[in-house]
Every structure is written in structure tokens, then in C-alpha cells.
């Protein structure tokens, strides 16, 4: 095989939506329209900032909090909490949902907890939020399915009940607090900077993305793009995998075949990282530096195959925070307007602490659930 790109290589490498190369022509394509410089700068700053709060409970920590007063919501217990969930259709949401339920069980003062699952349907979630308002909730937690489209529904609920939004935001500041980890830019940048650091100059990078158009994923890629454009690496391909392991493996195999050698793999989510690693193994090649996420299957592979890897995270422990926030609000305690949770990355140094034998392969290590009742069985693990 030859290192000379096949005739189609330029086309394939421009697989990003716009289909044309960026000005720097690092093969990364145009910057995403989701990219907001101010947000990017803020997240880059937060990565270096120190979080306040109990050090052993990252889900109670916050970075740079702007506290707001909640006395108007103060109310005597017991409490009825309501939760409108976008979906439980992937392992990340599964782990988070179980964690939240366990957190609720921790608090005796919550006597009722009503949760509706929108099954990934915006329209259903709008109806769900409306329906929950009729159930006499003391506080409403919302994990929006999409940002723009859930805004009217959340705006409608704000006047009636204190609203707590987490994971994805909405385009209104009416919720009492919005809880999120630092964000997608931080994730994408952490992985890209690792590759820039580990891959020799001129190395060929393959970027694997799940789908276009998902806000969290778009920000991850746009931050990575910034990093790659500044570097001396060459991004030879940006491909969408639909989150499908078989497709991921095929795509990586194709690139190995076409370029002879790939020097680094960037991924916008870790679900198919193991498949990408296996593609190199099956081709009989050493696995280049790669990033995954905090899922057990990747951490295990990392440790077993002694990979050069990093696992930025989007911690599932954020599912604990809304319950804590709701109680604080109902007790009239101050909460941050935007509750930025720390977002650690798993590195070679701390890998061992996050590797948890006995947990299912798709379990997320940063669930913060180890101290919760029912662990590990409730999360599908064995002790």
C-alpha cells in the first residue's frame, strides 16, 4: 500500500456537513455554526478554575458560582418532586436515571417523585411538562430533549413552579438554576490537546463523530477543530458513525487500508471507541493515541492493551445534582444560577481508580454512585 492519498481522499476528508475544507486546510472542514467563541473561552477558563464545594462530592461542587436567592420558593416539607426526562434510550441516560432515583431515595423529605419519560420525542416532552404542572409538584426538574424546542414549555412552567434544568439548557433564564458540567468544548479540547501532545508532527488524525446536528456533540468537535487547526497534525478524515460499532470498525479499517497508517483517533463520544481500537488490532497494527469516554469497556481495553489514551468525561453524576438543588431551593438556600460541575478527564495516572471490574461494559465510571444505596446491583454490576 501507498501513503499517497487515493483520488477521493480530499473528498472523503471533507465529510463534514459543509463538504469544503477550512481556511487553514487541516482537513477539518468549516467551523460548526454551533461554535460560540465566548462560550468556548469561558469553558477553556473553567477547565483551569478550581471548583468550590466538598472535594469528595464533585456533584455538589460548582465552578465560579453566581448565587441566586431562592427565599421565594421556601416551603415546608414533605416535598413532591417532578421530573420530565427526555429519554432513557442510551446507556449514559440509563446510568444517570438510576443515579437520580437513588439520590431521591436518600432524602426522606421527598415523599413523592413523579417522573415522565418523553421517549426522545419533543412533542411528548412538551405535553409531559404540561401534565406535570397539574400534578401538584413542588419543584420541576427538566432534562430537555432539545434546547430550542423545549424552551416554550419550560417558559410556561417557570411561573408556576421552581424549575431546575440540567444536562442540556433552554433558551430562557427563567429556570432557577441550570446544572451542567463544564461542557462540550472542554470535552473536545481535552481529547484534541492530548492527541496534539502525543502524535508526532504531521501525523494523520481520523476524527469520528456520531451524528451531525447534536448540540453537545457539535461543540465537542468545534473545540477539537480549533485545536487541530492550530497544530501541525493533518486530519485525514471526519466521519460519522451513527454510534454504530460495526460501522465504526469498518470506517477505521477503510482508513487504515487507504492511508496505510493512522496516527491518532479523535472521537466525539466514547461508545464506539473499543470498536475503533479493535480495527487496529485486527489490521495487525499498533493502536495509536486515541480518546474514549468513561465507559468501562473502554477503560478495560485501555488497561489490558496498554493504550496511549485519554477519556474526557461528561459525568453522569450530574444526575444527582438536580435533586440536591431542588431541596436547596425548597429550603430557601442559595444556588448558583448556572451550576457548573467539574468535568474531570481520566488519564493514565488515575485510570486504576475508575476501572471497576464487575460493572457492565457500558457503565459510566463517573456516576458518583458508589456511595448510594443499592450499588452495584442496581446499576447492573456485581460486587
Amino acid at each position, binding site marked *: 500500500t501507498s501513503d499517497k492519498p487515493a483520488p477521493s481522499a480530499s473528498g472523503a476528508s471533507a465529510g463534514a*456537513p459543509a463538504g469544503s475544507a477550512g481556511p487553514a486546510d487541516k482537513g477539518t472542514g468549516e467551523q*460548526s*455554526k*454551533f461554535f460560540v467563541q465566548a462560550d468556548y473561552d469561558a469553558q477553556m477558563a473553567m477547565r483551569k478554575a478550581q471548583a468550590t464545594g466538598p472535594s469528595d462530592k464533585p456533584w455538589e461542587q460548582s465552578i465560579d458560582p453566581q448565587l441566586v436567592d431562592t427565599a421565594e420558593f421556601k416551603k415546608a416539607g414533605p416535598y413532591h418532586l417532578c421530573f420530565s426526562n427526555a*429519554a*432513557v*434510550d442510551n446507556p449514559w441516560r440509563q446510568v444517570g436515571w438510576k443515579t437520580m432515583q437513588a439520590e431521591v431515595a436518600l432524602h426522606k423529605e421527598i415523599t413523592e417523585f*413523579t*417522573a*415522565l*419519560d418523553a*421517549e*426522545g*420525542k*419533543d*412533542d*411528548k416532552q*412538551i*405535553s*409531559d411538562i*404540561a*401534565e406535570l*404542572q*397539574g*400534578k401538584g409538584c413542588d419543584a420541576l426538574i427538566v432534562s430537555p*430533549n*432539545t*434546547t*430550542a*424546542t*423545549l*424552551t*416554550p414549555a419550560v417558559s*410556561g412552567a417557570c411561573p408556576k413552579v421552581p424549575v431546575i434544568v440540567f444536562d442540556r439548557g433552554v433558551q430562557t433564564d427563567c429556570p432557577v438554576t441550570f446544572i451542567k458540567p463544564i461542557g462540550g468544548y472542554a470535552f473536545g479540547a481535552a481529547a484534541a490537546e492530548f492527541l496534539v501532545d502525543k502524535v508526532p508532527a504531521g501525523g494523520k488524525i481520523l476524527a469520528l463523530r456520531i451524528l*451531525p*446536528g*447534536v*448540540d453537545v456533540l*457539535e461543540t465537542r468537535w468545534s473545540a477539537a477543530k480549533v485545536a487541530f487547526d492550530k497544530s501541525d497534525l493533518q486530519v485525514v478524515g471526519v466521519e460519522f458513525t451513527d454510534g454504530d460499532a460495526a460501522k465504526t470498525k469498518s470506517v477505521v479499517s477503510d482508513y487504515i487500508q487507504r492511508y496505510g497508517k493512522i496516527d491518532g483517533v479523535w472521537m466525539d463520544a466514547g461508545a464506539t471507541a473499543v470498536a475503533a481500537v479493535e480495527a487496529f488490532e485486527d489490521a495487525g497494527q499498533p493502536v495509536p493515541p486515541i480518546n474514549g469516554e468513561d465507559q468501562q469497556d473502554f477503560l478495560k481495553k485501555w488497561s489490558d492493551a496498554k493504550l496511549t489514551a485519554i477519556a474526557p468525561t461528561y459525568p453522569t453524576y450530574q444526575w444527582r445534582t438536580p435533586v440536591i438543588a431542588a431541596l436547596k431551593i425548597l429550603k430557601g438556600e442559595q444556588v448558583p444560577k448556572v451550576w457548573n460541575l467539574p468535568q474531570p478527564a481520566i488519564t493514565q495516572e488515575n485510570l486504576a481508580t475508575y476501572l471497576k471490574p464487575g460493572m457492565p461494559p457500558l457503565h459510566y465510571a463517573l456516576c458518583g454512585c458508589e456511595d448510594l444505596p443499592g450499588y452495584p446491583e442496581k446499576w447492573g454490576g456485581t460486587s
Partner: protein
Amino acid sequence: MTQQLKLRPVPAGGSLIRRLSADRPARPVYVALALLVVLGWLVFALDGGAFLSQENIVGIQQRSAALGIVAVGQTLVILAGSLDLSVAYLISLTSLVTAEIMAGSDTGVPVAVAAALAVSALTGLVNGLIVTRLRVHAFIATLGVALVIRGALDARYDGPAGSVPESFQHLGYDRIGPLPVSALLWAAVAAGAWLLLSRTRLGYRIYAVGGDTEVARLSGVRTERVVVAAHVLCSVCAGIAGLLLASRLGAGAPTVGTDGGYDLESIAAVVLGGTALAGGRGGVAGTVGGVLLLAVLDSIFNQLEVNSFAKDVVRGVILVAALAIYARRRRTR
């Protein structure tokens, strides 16, 4: 026309009853619906809620409006012996067309509505022409068109876009008394389709073509036009659903149709309502019952906080069981 027979009206004795029972296949779904309402009432009572409360009834109506409108359209194509798997992507497309043209301004509303309906009618025309002219099985034809729309959506959009002015959101959120505007819209679409099927030539011919295309053709029906018309109407219904969803979401979304599963769910609602998948038998009344059945079921699931996996199992079982009952009734008749 050489039609010279004298047509004298005869006293229409008992024709109302006849017409009501003309949609006979729909009866079981209403029996099931009644049973489910009783069950719902029981479940809510035991669970400390009020099934027949205004919130819940409004909720059921709003939940069913979009699916209901799509399913009415789907009824027309299925009766005509065809099928439309492209509605889900079309809904996404029209929601985006609507929201982008409106761009948050009131003045854009009429143009946007017209454009959304035009886009959907055009899609229906394409579906219909592929099925009739190119003789591609509707399953493949509409699946292919769905893929094409998906490609267009993927290429152009990577998230919600456009925005809908406050005035247009009345469609999705307002109520007249206990009746949400969206439910009234659904009722209007259903009534229109019912009138079409039971009182117009096109309706008669839709049944004829679905019953037996060759017979219809030999009897002088321009079958291809009928199939195309049914597809256009179905797509327009999907377009209306897109409008409604845009108004509810306040924006257009490239995944709203597929996330809602409107393709397979609308087909499920239609067959639950007793319309034969092969065409030629059934009607809108059944479909309305089918959609309501699914909505009441959802409401009960919500009250019981059943997880989504269990819901799928129950839905699957109900679908198959219902069709088995229909098949049995048909055989023993």
C-alpha cells in the same frame, strides 16, 4: 357523458344508521377504547389521580393531535392500497420549512403555511407518481423518498432551526374551553377525510382502487390519479402535522418526525382502527379510535410511570392481539 338514466331520489330511510354502521370495522376499536377508559379510570382512582380531570383529557387530546392528523392521511393511502413510510421525514421537513420562513415574524405566517403545504403536496405527488408511473411498490417507493428527504435534512440542517412567532403558537397551545386548538384541527382534518371518503367520488374511488385496482380500472376509474391523489392528501396531512409541531416546538426540528415515530405509529393506529392493510376496507372513524386508544394507553402508562421498554412490549402485544381479533371476526362472519 352518456349517462342518461333518470336519477330519482328515494326516501332515505334509515340511511343515517346505515352510514354510521358503514364504518363497521371500527366498532371493536371503540369497544376496546371504552374498556380502556374504564381501566384508566380505575388505575387513576387507585393511584390517586383523576383520569377524567380536565388536565388529563386535554393532555390526551394534545398528545394525539399530531399523530391523529398523520394517521388520517395514512388511512387514505392505505385504503387506496398503498402505504406511506415517508411521513416522518416529511413532518420534520415541513416543520423546518414553516419555522424558517416564519423566522419569528407574524407576516411570514401565511407564506410559511402555504409553503409547507406546497412542499408536502409536492412530496405526495412524487410518492404517487413513483408508485403509479414507475410501478415501484409503495413500501420501497416511500422508503426511498424518505431517504431522499433525510439526505436533504442531514445536508442542510444540524439542529432545530427557524422560529415561530408567538401568534402562530396559539395553534399548538391555546384552548377553546376544554378543547385544545390542536385537537380541533385534528377533528377538522378527520371530519374532512370522513366526508371525502363517504360522500365524494374521490372517496368512492379510493375504496375501489384499494379493493381491486384492475376492477376499478376496467370500470372506468382512472386508478393512477386516485392513488396519486391519496398520496398527495396523505402528505398534506403530514404537512399539517408538521405545522402543528412547529407551532408546539416554536421552531423546526430535523428529527421531530422520526423521533415521534410517526411512520410506523400512524400505520399501527390505522390498522388498530380496523382498516385493512391491503386496502379497500375501513375508514377514518376507526383510525380516530385507534389514535385515541394509543393516547389513552399512553396516559395510563404515564400515570403508572411504566418504563419505555415495558410500554413497547405492551404496545406490540396489543397491536398483534387486535389484528388477530379482527382476522377472527372476519373469518367467522
